[in-house]
């Protein structure tokens, strides 16, 4: 019966998953997004190996995910919902109301921040949204702490009947450390629903009462946080008042702790760690402030704790201009900020550990940027190439996913938020139509993003008679975030089969009259279809034309995507036009300066052969296996 403990070198997201299971979480919903995507799969993996009951679902978007998890919590089960920080914007409608209504079982919302940003459209700080929604938030500094915090968050949520947020930053999610755990006993709860319309369907009159109740909860949680020494507190104080103290949370806390220890100055500059920035444990901070002449606040990404400190004259941070308002607080930036603060209070500066000369050299060298690029063989490259060819003068609205990299092919002009390829295309169409102009507009959106938030925009566009071409880039997977399934295939988060909802049925259901499905590897056929689509858009009785460019992702489905790998070669007849490099931008095609022509890197080449259709000079040829002869491509 007894199994010994287990140790694994877990990703921060794995540590969060482990903490959720240890807290008895039975339901997890999520929409993938860097840096949050691995939490749900890790929870499923660990639950399987521990024999724990766990329902997981990839919801179609974050708002849907939060509603699903919230309902599970209303039944008394413990539930969690995971997303990236911009996903919380989508789920905010649900969160704001859920805070008023409260829960029965614990509900933890995990919203992962991306200071940098490394893989997001904003650097927004989830803690600000927690404050706006009046929901408590935990801010872990490392994977192990994230695991402990998620357990405590679940307890607090259930005790006070309030959703609680865990806000790990990317350096927690994508850090790894060894974690040890004992067997987790299953503690399944049965779903129950107690009718209570004044709570679960509260009208404005009852909402006022719920708001008052929420404010009372926050007051009591603040008091609890002030005694939560496991996550909040400072080392025993030095005698008297020190010239400089630091209040820090999250990853910046871990960085500054290392830095002070390396320099042997941890006694000289005390640090108050706050792991629960909201509701802010003010009494702890006030006591710390009274022992310091100045306090430097290090937090990511915005000023949150800083604004809760009442004696602003003593506080240095973003408002005082000491800490930058944008960008990740990487170790060297924290070292610069700390060094300045030390000098300003008259303490010794930090020992300079790096050579400024080397950095000047780096600036002079101007090393080449390596912009992210679509993979060799990516069907999106073929689709974008065809779009540029068919309608070179169009406005290209696009969306969030790998295909944002269509930028490199000159086929992406806008990228606002999830679903905006369609809604911005609508807006452009109406703005030009008002002036009597029919501008060609081509919107591109991925399959997963279309399911996430494309349908409302498409319905709206059809209803309001907007005119544009929509190309749904259907690679049958959520590729950018690590190959999660989409509703189109019907495979679910746990690998079981659900009911597939084909894209074409959804598109037709939105009232679209022109729908074609084309394989983007066939560039001439896609170009022809795009032109037909544009003709339809232009007809007085026309409307929106939708083309599904369907070809499996080369990373997710290597065999299906390229069943017969082609061996390719560039002949001496290459005229150095560089179209294959600059316009087609395949990473496997390089310019060989010595030979004076383009060349194919056989290690990088995926063998899709799409470039055969691209070379205007027919200098790219397939190397035939049998005779080793080269046959020019016909086509």
């Amino acid at each position, binding site marked *: 019966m007894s199994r010994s403990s287990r140790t694994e*070198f877990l990703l921060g997201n794995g540590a969060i998953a482990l903490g959720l299971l240890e807290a008895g979480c039975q339901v997890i919903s999520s929409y993938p997004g*860097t*840096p949050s*995507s691995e939490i749900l799969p890790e929870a499923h993996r660990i639950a399987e190996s521990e024999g724990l009951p766990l329902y997981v679902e990839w919801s179609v978007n974050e708002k849907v995910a939060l509603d699903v998890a919230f309902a599970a919590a209303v039944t008394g089960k413990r539930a969690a919902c995971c997303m990236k920080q911009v996903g919380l914007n989508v789920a905010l409608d649900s969160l704001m109301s859920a805070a008023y209504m409260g829960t029965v079982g614990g509900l933890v919302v995990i919203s992962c921040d991306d200071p940098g940003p*490394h*893989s997001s459209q904003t650097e927004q700080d989830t803690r600000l949204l927690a404050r706006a929604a009046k929901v408590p938030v935990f801010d872990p*500094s*490392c994977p192990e702490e994230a695991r402990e915090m998620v357990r405590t968050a679940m307890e607090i949520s259930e005790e006070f009947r309030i959703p609680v947020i865990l806000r790990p930053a990317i*350096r927690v999610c*994508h*850090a*790894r*450390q*060894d974690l040890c755990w004992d067997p987790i006993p299953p503690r399944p709860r049965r779903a129950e629903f107690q009718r209570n319309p004044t709570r679960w369907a509260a009208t404005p009159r009852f909402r006022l009462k719920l708001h008052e109740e929420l404010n009372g909860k926050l007051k009591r949680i603040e008091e609890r946080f002030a005694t939560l020494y496991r996550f909040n507190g400072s080392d025993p104080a030095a005698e008297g008042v020190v010239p400089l103290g630091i209040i820090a949370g999250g*990853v910046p806390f*871990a*960085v500054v*702790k*290392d*830095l002070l*220890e*390396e320099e042997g100055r941890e006694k000289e500059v005390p640090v108050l760690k706050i792991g629960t920035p909201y509701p802010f444990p003010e009494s702890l901070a006030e006591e710390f402030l009274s022992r310091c002449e100045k306090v430097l606040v290090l937090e990511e990404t915005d000023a949150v704790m800083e604004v809760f400190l009442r004696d602003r004259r003593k506080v240095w941070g973003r408002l005082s201009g000491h800490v930058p308002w944008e960008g990740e607080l*990487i*170790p*060297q930036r924290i*070292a610069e900020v700390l060094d300045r603060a030390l000098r300003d209070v008259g303490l010794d500066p930090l020992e*300079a*550990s*790096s*050579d400024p000369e*080397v*950095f000047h*050299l*780096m600036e002079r*060298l*101007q*090393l*080449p*940027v*390596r*912009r*992210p*690029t*679509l*993979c060799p063989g990516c069907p999106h490259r073929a689709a974008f190439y065809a779009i540029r060819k068919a309608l070179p003068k169009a406005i290209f609205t696009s969306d969030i996913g*790998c295909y*944002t*990299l269509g930028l490199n092919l000159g086929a992406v002009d806008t990228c606002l938020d999830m679903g905006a390829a369609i809604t911005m295309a609508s807006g452009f169409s109406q703005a030009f139509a008002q002036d009597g102009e029919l501008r060609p507009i081509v919107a591109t959106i991925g399959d997963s993003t279309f399911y996430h938030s494309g349908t409302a925009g498409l319905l709206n566009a059809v209803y309001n008679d907007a005119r544009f071409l929509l190309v749904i880039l259907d690679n049958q997977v959520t590729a*950018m*975030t*690590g190959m999660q399934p989409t509703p189109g295939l019907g495979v679910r988060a746990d690998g079981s089969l659900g009911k597939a909802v084909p894209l074409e049925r959804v598109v037709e259901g939105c009232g679209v009259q022109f729908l074609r499905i084309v394989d983007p590897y066939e560039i001439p056929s896609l170009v022809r279809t795009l032109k037909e689509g544009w003709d339809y858009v232009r007809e007085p009785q026309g409307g929106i034309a939708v083309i599904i460019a369907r070809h499996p992702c080369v990373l997710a489905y290597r065999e299906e995507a390229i069943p017969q790998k082609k061996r390719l070669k560039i002949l001496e007849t290459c005229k150095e036009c*560089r179209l294959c*490099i*600059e316009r087609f*931008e395949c*990473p496997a095609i*390089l*310019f060989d300066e010595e030979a004076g022509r383009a060349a194919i890197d056989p*290690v990088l080449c995926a063998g899709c052969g799409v470039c055969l259709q691209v070379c205007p000079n027919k200098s790219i040829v397939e190397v035939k296996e049998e005779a080793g002869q080269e046959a020019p491509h016909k086509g």
Partner: protein
Amino acid sequence: MAKASWEVNNVLIVGVGGQGVILASEILSEVAMRSGFDVKKSEVHGMAQRGGIVSSHVRYGSEVASPLIPQGEVDVLLAFELAEAVRWIGFLSPKGRVIASRQRLVPPIVSTGLASYPEDAESILQRETWAPVLVDAQQLANQLGNPRLVNTILLGVASRLLELPHRTWRRVVSERVPKAYRELNLAAFEQGRGILGSSSVS
């Protein structure tokens, strides 16, 4: 190179998306973990993985708080690409060493004339860092019969500077590579390990 056992060891592994930086950093972390150290590691996912600049920080010691290596604290910079090695030398500690593959991956932007590739990357490394180890890893891998052995060869070189048990390295490498390629990878690892002091180093 030797550090007191309580000190934090910092290894920065860098390269270009798709070169296997993350797997190499996982192997090193596992070796350090099994050798009894507290290990923290940081990596990149998402947009940054699509052909861009990739780096992974590995830190181990008796206690490590942050997964990020501060500037000027890198003990070993393991680079899978030459220009990427140059990009990160400002992170080296005064006694830090560079191990770099001589492979050059010139990004497309260079051929458009909008950026340049440092032709003298090797001499920059020789001039600006102490005793860099430059390895013809690709050539060696091809000689061993598989271009994908580059990572294992480079880990072998690094293993000589990192003072973690040889046996643990061998065990972790054999566990983390496909079964069919186990012997080949171990041979590649040993070949890399033998490089420091032999003639393929300049």
